């Protein structure tokens, strides 16, 4: 997974790939909403059941960013 740091110190963008299975989008957004975070940008591009690129941007401190990355790494739909 690739992390891009934007100008704002607390703004993060994660770029990763998933398999476009049922519910994958909800699982990803749920990681954020559950923790009371807001997504500020979201990009999702793929085919049904196929490889899909995801980019998410959000504001969080370092500790939370790391925690979010660990959660994304656990997604069964992730294509590492």
């Amino acid at each position: 997974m690739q992390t891009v740091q934007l100008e704002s110190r607390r703004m993060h963008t994660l770029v990763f790939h998933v398999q476009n299975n049922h519910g994958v989008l909800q699982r990803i957004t749920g990681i954020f909403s559950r923790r009371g975070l807001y997504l500020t940008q979201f990009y999702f591009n793929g085919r049904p059941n196929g490889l899909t690129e995801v980019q998410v941007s959000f504001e969080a401190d370092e500790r939370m960013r790391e925690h979010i990355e660990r959660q994304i790494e656990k997604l069964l739909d992730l294509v590492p």
Partner: protein
Amino acid sequence: MNGSQALIESMRAQGQKTLFGIPGGAVLPLYDALSQQSDVRHVFTRHEQGAVHAAQGFARASGQTGVCIGTSGPGATNLVTGIADAYMDSTNIIALMGQVPSQLLGKDAFQETDVFSMTLPLTKHSFKVMQASQFPSVVKSAYRIANTGRPGPVAIEMTKDALTAPVTEWGDRELALNYYVPSEPNQDKIRQAALMLLEAERPMMLAGGGVTIANAGAEFTALAEALMCFAATTITAKGVIPGDHPLCLGQLGMHGRQVTNHAIANCDVLLAVGTRFSDRITGRIESFAPHAKVIHVDIDPSEFNKNVDAFLAIAADAKPGLKELLRHVLAAQRSDRSKAWREKVKELDRQCSCDIARDEVPIRAERVIHELNRHLPENAIVCTEVGHHQMYATHFFKSRKPRHFITSAGAGTMGFGLPAAIGAKAAKPEQPVIDVGSEGSLVMVCQEMATAVTEKLPVSVCNLNNGWYAIVKQWQKLFYDGRYIASKLGDVPDWVKLTESFGGRALRVTRPSELGDAIKEAARSEELFLLDVITDSSDAGMPLVPPLGSNTEMALGQSCPTVERNYFGVR
């Protein structure tokens, strides 16, 4: 072969022998297929919540996957609490949820609820099956997900047409998913951890549910012995080191023992295995083990630095992790730098003992647990409901083996215990199973007594009947100036009559002296048996850390011993 038969065949291939559930329109094809075979037993519960908790009890007692079934709509939504509970306690269950035929999806058809989406945040993974041919590979993948890495619940939503359509081609290849890949514990870190533990002046060990799940109780105990190190256990780890082992300090945290909380607060190295450091364990996080370098061993790296910062984080299954640590510790020269600490903790442990054999009437909760300690056979499986009785049981009951104490820990679901006991009995029919409960929780699931009787899964219930939501009463007393509301239950129902009406046997116990024989009878009983023990609703015997308070600032019940503070001379 149709989808339903393929589903059953796929579960049978995984070794599944028991399912728990309730039928309904959307899953009737599955039930019809179940009726045509005898390899897999279906236990007919009386509420879907009973089915899912039974599946949890089955899984936690045996380690094998628990499976439950609910029909579309309300049947499946009734499973949701148990799925959430299993997620919190990392329990390997699979929930089969009915759904309307796929051509009706999104049409607000009868009993159409989007249970797939509902369960997404509560599962490790959820599948939506809309074609019969998907079953073999989905089921195989579901078992792998539920059981590998950090276990957890998997939900499978199945449209009715998927259950009825013919399976033309059998393909059971696992789906390509990001499964857990086991990794060997990092040897450098293990070596460093062993060294830290050997050189510590004030070492402590802490076991969480991960040690239970990994079946690593023997390794955990052996390591404690090799290090001569005291160990605390969370409530999902009860029994991984025998409760009466001289090195076992038992429960920590909110309702933990004073000595255990003090020891953790003063240790200099803390080895924590398979625990997520929940708030109920840590209390105010800043004052949790403030002097300790924490060595955190966990199979799930997302737990590292989540609640407690790790000095050393070792990603590993508890069993190989502990084995490797033990190997290094045994091979090392030891200088025994922790002797003084051990003496101090021992002294504190002595101070931290209260009289739990008290004779009052109504019977004190701790007396009931004391008698359970004395009279339950060692192989008895104890389940609990949720409330004060649960905290008394986790605090005072001495479990001697892992997987023999089953309680809803992370979710704290009232009504968990009775169905979990039924599930545990289905998994371990040769062992006595007893639910230590209380009437507030029990009345939420008392219909499962019918399951115990008709399905011939004879469990016992020890009902600490105190007429209140005793734990709510305590909080209202301590934190809301005794303004009691919605916590007094009164003396309905009559539990003896209720049990008898379900076809079980029951005995009312009002005096402490009657407890011993009654418990022995319950443990021996080959039919549903309830002890209605009339108990005191006070909190006199239980220490408590106020929510988000510091673990060393416990509010003491009247009969709690006072354990010296700052005994260790560490600030």
